[in-house]
């Protein structure tokens, strides 16, 4: 088994536990009926699943954005060849 001591868990994952806990406690105080064995565990798992999906979408979105930006940057840096200079482009000798 790989040593994971030097591979800390992402902080945003730990934050999800805190968010799930605070919202469950708040909701549970407001509506005591949800303070039970089924809803408690389910709450954490649903919040975690939703958060992971959001994170993935955000990561994919930002990766796509980064890719687009990179492409645009590349396109900007490429020399614009004027259409009326085919000979120069072909490297014809003077």
């Amino acid at each position, binding site marked *: *088994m790989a040593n994971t001591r030097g*591979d800390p868990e992402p902080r945003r994952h730990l934050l999800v536990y805190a968010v799930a*806990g605070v919202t*469950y406690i708040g909701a549970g105080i407001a509506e*005591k009926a949800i*303070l039970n064995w089924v809803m408690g565990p389910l709450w*954490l798992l649903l919040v975690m699943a939703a958060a992971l999906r959001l994170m993935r979408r955000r990561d994919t979105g930002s990766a796509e954005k980064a890719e687009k930006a990179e492409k645009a940057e590349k396109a900007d840096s490429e020399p614009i060849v004027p259409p009326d200079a085919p000979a120069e482009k072909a490297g014809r000798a003077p």
Partner: protein
Amino acid sequence: MSWAAHQFETYAIQAHLPKRWQLKVSYLAIVLGDQLPDFIAKFWVYGFSVNGHHYGAKVPQQFHRGWPGAGFSHSLFLGFILVGIWLWRTHDRPWSRQWAAGFLLGFAAHCVTDINDSVGTMLLFPFSTANFSIGTWAYAATVKGGKYLDAAAYYSSFGLVMDLFWLGVVLCSWRVLTRHHWRTQVVASDPRAWAWLGRRMSEPMLLAVYRVTFFYGVCRIVAWTFWAHVLTGKEHPWGLHWGGPDFVTLVHLSQLPVWLVLLTAAAVLSGVCYLVDRIITGGQPQPADRELVST
């Protein structure tokens, strides 16, 4: 009855497994064994109402912990029977012993923890139907009060201290909650079950499954204590003394001397540990024992 203590004791067991048992006890089985007694009995203890008619146990404490009733669900006898059937049916499977050992540890922890309320558990059932209790707090499940009065009473008594004690035990061994421990100890001791779950979930979700009972335990302590002492505090005064709180009637099924209860609980736990060791090792000497024999 105990509330969040049952959620925390599973991690406490996992964190403090003796070296020779490490990687040989399934954590999922500990949880299953620890939750099963209340899963069998508790629903009917509180009951439910339909159109003003209450369906449930007429005498909750008798049904929950007594005989006749479902009190056998909190006796080690049921744990031994279930583990016996399990080993008989699955003895040729590689994960059979891990699950049997974990289940028995979790089940025993639940039965022994519940001797703290005034009703206690039938530790020696079926040889004796006496309930072993040290009466640290009042058993408070009643037909009229239901779950809410039970929660208020528990979190106004030494029950809260008990929950906080177990929370402290887990926090003192906080590494048990880390991804590293989960990967190297929990998954490694029960790879098939986690692999089966892993085909359906990502690793962060699997970790959430592992930590979910801790999460639920912490949330229920905070939520019920807040409700009982901030929102409805006047109705539920603190009763931090032996057998408290005072706003519920103290009920018993048997009254045995405390020393006898503690002695029996210690004997029962020692017996369980011996059995778990036999299950894990199969009666074969372990590497450490072999070294001792050879020297």
